[in-house]
């Protein structure tokens, strides 16, 4: 094996980001507390450069590196770009929030960067081990980040729950992977795919074994994505973590989760589509039902968003169920727009929070229109988008997914989905109601830095702009799967 065959240049963005993360780790140790801003600036700078590297490195063809462990294709490029952009947004929104709580520490940024590297590796995995390593790098950073505000008992409890359930899920995944490895004799996704389709054709005992492995993989994916009935960790973790960390968990990792589904289920186990389709239909319907119904009962906005995430996962899975390239691209479109919406949602929650006050109850949003009409408007757009009301991007995401399901003659799935989104609309409307119709308890206008204002406004307007002109993002997602 020569050094050239590693093709290290293909993984340049990851390599660069990893180097920067290590560098920032060292630099931060020597920084006095009042110079901590440098860590922040360095972090953001490295994200921007990573983004530029990804864009520069873009390719239409499929390139392999590290002895075929690592793959670069159009899907990987697109997802990585959005992972980096969204994480950049999370760091912008969380700066003042962390400062106000005296947890403006280097660890947040270092762990955050490592988790981004993990996501990027997942997205580019071409081998079960690579996928698993990326996932674990992401998860371990997130476990630590949840407990990051270590004096907070809620956070510690959430971290514990997250860790234990996450570890079980990882165990499931490993078990499933080991079965697949045992039956196919390879960790390479493409070789597994060949073995799976051969087994499916032969329809022998080996095929049953494959399906057995598939079940564990689906369970693990359900855990990581938060699909019902494997969703139990989500509300507690969303609620217990500092909002900055919730934002980190609730946005970009969904993109990585989508990539994991694509790599595992479609690329490796595509031959078992008929089997996993049925399993995912159940996960999807349950997620839509439980997510939307239980969200109504929440008074904490972070818990509500957790349940709303569950219902959105149900929609993303709908696109996967379709099992066509339209379905995959619609699911990808949905995931990207969902990540943008929930980024904005957490941004507004962090904006509302002040020193010693979390602003995570729905009633804390009361009278936002009187306090800051502009941010109330942004939040309204975000909520309408989550509810899927035009002219916001959320509507197009739902339309794309529904079209994909109807295309494969699953009209009843589309009807179930719209039925639960009717139920879902109520809790999004309630947020608008609280902001616009209720009177404010605290009438002080919201204060925040210019960077936050610009970022949040851009975020909200992007949702609206994509609602008026979704064609660009949509054709990007479609081109990925052609």
């Amino acid at each position, binding site marked *: 094996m020569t050094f050239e065959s590693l093709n290290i240049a293909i993984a340049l963005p990851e390599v660069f980001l990893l180097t920067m993360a290590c560098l920032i780790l060292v630099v931060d140790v020597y920084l006095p507390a009042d110079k901590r801003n440098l860590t922040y600036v360095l972090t953001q700078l490295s994200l921007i450069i990573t983004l530029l590297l990804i864009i520069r490195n873009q390719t239409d063809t499929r390139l392999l590196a590290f002895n075929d462990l690592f793959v670069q294709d159009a899907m990987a490029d697109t997802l990585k770009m959005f992972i980096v952009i969204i994480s950049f947004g999370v760091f912008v929104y969380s700066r003042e929030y962390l400062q106000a709580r005296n947890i403006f520490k280097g660890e947040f940024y270092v762990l955050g960067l490592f988790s981004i590297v993990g996501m990027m590796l997942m997205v580019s995995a071409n081998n079960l081990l690579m996928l698993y390593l990326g996932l674990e790098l992401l998860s371990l950073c997130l476990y630590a980040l949840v407990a990051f505000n270590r004096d907070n008992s809620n956070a510690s409890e959430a971290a514990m729950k997250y860790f234990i359930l996450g570890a079980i899920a990882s165990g499931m995944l490993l078990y499933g992977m080991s079965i697949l490895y045992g039956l196919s004799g390879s960790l390479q996704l493409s070789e597994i795919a060949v073995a799976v389709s051969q087994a499916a054709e032969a329809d022998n005992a080996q095929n049953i074994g494959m399906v057995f492995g598939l079940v564990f993989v689906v369970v693990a994916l359900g855990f990581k994505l938060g699909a019902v009935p494997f969703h139990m960790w989500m509300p507690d973790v969303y609620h217990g973590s500092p909002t900055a960390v919730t934002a980190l968990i609730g946005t970009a990792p969904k993109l990585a989760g989508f990539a994991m589904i694509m790599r595992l289920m479609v690329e490796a186990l595509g031959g078992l589509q008929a089997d996993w389709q049925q399993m995912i239909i159940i996960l999807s319907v349950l997620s839509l039902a439980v997510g939307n119904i239980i969200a109504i009962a929440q008074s904490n906005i972070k818990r509500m968003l957790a349940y709303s995430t569950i219902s959105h996962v149900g929609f993303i899975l709908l696109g996967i169920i379709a099992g066509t390239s339209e379905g995959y691209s619609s699911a990808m479109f949905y995931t990207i727009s969902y990540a943008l919406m929930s980024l904005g949602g957490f941004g507004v929650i962090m904006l509302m929070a002040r020193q010693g006050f979390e602003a995570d109850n729905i009633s804390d949003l009361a009278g936002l229109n009187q306090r800051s009409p502009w941010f109330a408007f942004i939040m309204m757009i975000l909520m309408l988008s989550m509810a899927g009301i035009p002219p916001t991007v959320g509507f197009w995401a739902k339309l794309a997914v529904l079209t994909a399901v109807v295309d494969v003659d699953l009209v009843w799935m589309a009807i179930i989905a719209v039925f639960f989104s009717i139920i879902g609309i109520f809790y999004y409307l309630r947020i608008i*109601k609280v902001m616009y119709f209720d009177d404010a308890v605290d009438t002080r206008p919201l204060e925040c830095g210019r960077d936050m204002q610009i970022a949040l406004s851009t975020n909200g307007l992007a949702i609206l702009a994509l609602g008026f002109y979704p064609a660009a993002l949509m054709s990007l997602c479609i081109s990925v799967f052609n």
Partner: protein
Amino acid sequence: MFADLPLLSLIVWLPIFGGVAVLLSGDKGDANGVRVLSLVISIATFVLSLGLYTGFDSSTSAMQFVEKTPWISSFGINYHFGVDGFSMPLIILTTFTTILVVLAGWEVIKKKPAQYLAAFLIMEGLMVAVFAALDAIFFYVFWEAMLVPMFILIGVWGGERRVYATIKFFIYTFIGSVFMLVALIYMYYKGGSFAILDMHAMPLTFNEQVLIFLAFLAAFAVKVPMWPVHTWLPDAHVEAPTGGSVILAAIMLKIGGYGFIRFSLPITPDAAHSLDWLIIFMSLVAVVYIGFVALVQKDMKKLVAYSSIAHMGFVTLGLFVVFQIWENPANVSGGAAALAVEGAMIQMISHGFISGAMFLMIGVLYDRMHTREINAYGGVVHTMPIFAAFAVFFAMANAGLPGTSGFVGEFMVIIASFQANFWYAFLGALTLILGAAYTLWMVKRVFYGEIVNDGVRALKDLNSRELTIMSILAVAVLALGLWPAPVVDVMHASVENFLQHIAVPKI
């Protein structure tokens, strides 16, 4: 002069961007500036929309002023506008009513006037777009988006139970429309196009048609609203600010009726044919039963809201009675079907004027007395004689007095229903009695008799702004009542084409 302009786009986007400008100018500065700006925008939009009338070629049923550019090419969704004889009058009604609404809120709305006016202007653009859209998804986008400003309007500037009313309004309409969305997606899957005119021509089996028809019915029946899904309307009307009620009654309800014309009947003619008894039954229940319900209301706005439901019953009756007119062997005159559809259209426009006027009148009283209870009034004629004259006039129009626009549409529909079934006409004609009873009884209790309390004694008559609004509407009601020909003429070709289309079975 308008020939080479993208006129429909201008009429849609001028009020929307104008509304955004009003919104951005904010509530901190001079409220009068915001009001004048909104008035200028709404008048400019109205003047532009008159260009649709003057440039309209009434000899053809083809779409006119068509604008078409690809919007989302991966789904074949186009930015596609165009009008025919059905949508053009309704667009003008929309732009006309918006001027009155802007005027009606002039000094009455003190809380955040910029947001209030902006909501109306944005809604105006969205509603015009609903009437003008020729791409189903394009239509759906505006159809849903239109709910948001109304939701905010009722919720922020509404009465005591505004939150309940506005959420009910939103969820009711949303439930109906998502099933329509699934139907539209299904037809895209079958036919490969979201263009409404392509859907008209698309062959569908009977079972598909029935399901699609029911999905459309869910959307449009809620919007019209038809009995038994009408219950959101009285709540929304009672809680909405005056302007909101006017838009709701004068235009939003028409969008339901328009939906039947544009979607249900032409896309699923066979299902409409075999289920016409259901719609006719629901319409007659609305006319008769809701008429009785209106009779016992104690709240003026609720009374007018129920009367709206009863009047809209004529629209759906007129549209769906055509199949039975054709089937009736005793049918002697050939034009009865066209009469029914044209009557339904006239009824929609006339109801836009009259219900708008009724709600504005209640608004005039409410601004002074802050109550809508009929019991709180009496003898208003002694202190507000000019206003009382207008009130009696509009009440007569609401009751369907010949010479007013209220008579024309109802009369046309009743005459046409005679060709289908005597009892339809008989039950429909009951409205002439019931309508007169509930409206005139309300007028009697509010305006005549002795002055009942000091509040009424201190009332001041109409100011010049209110007088202007009332006069404009009175002229409109009279004009349409005495000489409906200009409106009927523009829609005639479209009606003929529509009837020819739905007479041909798709299976």
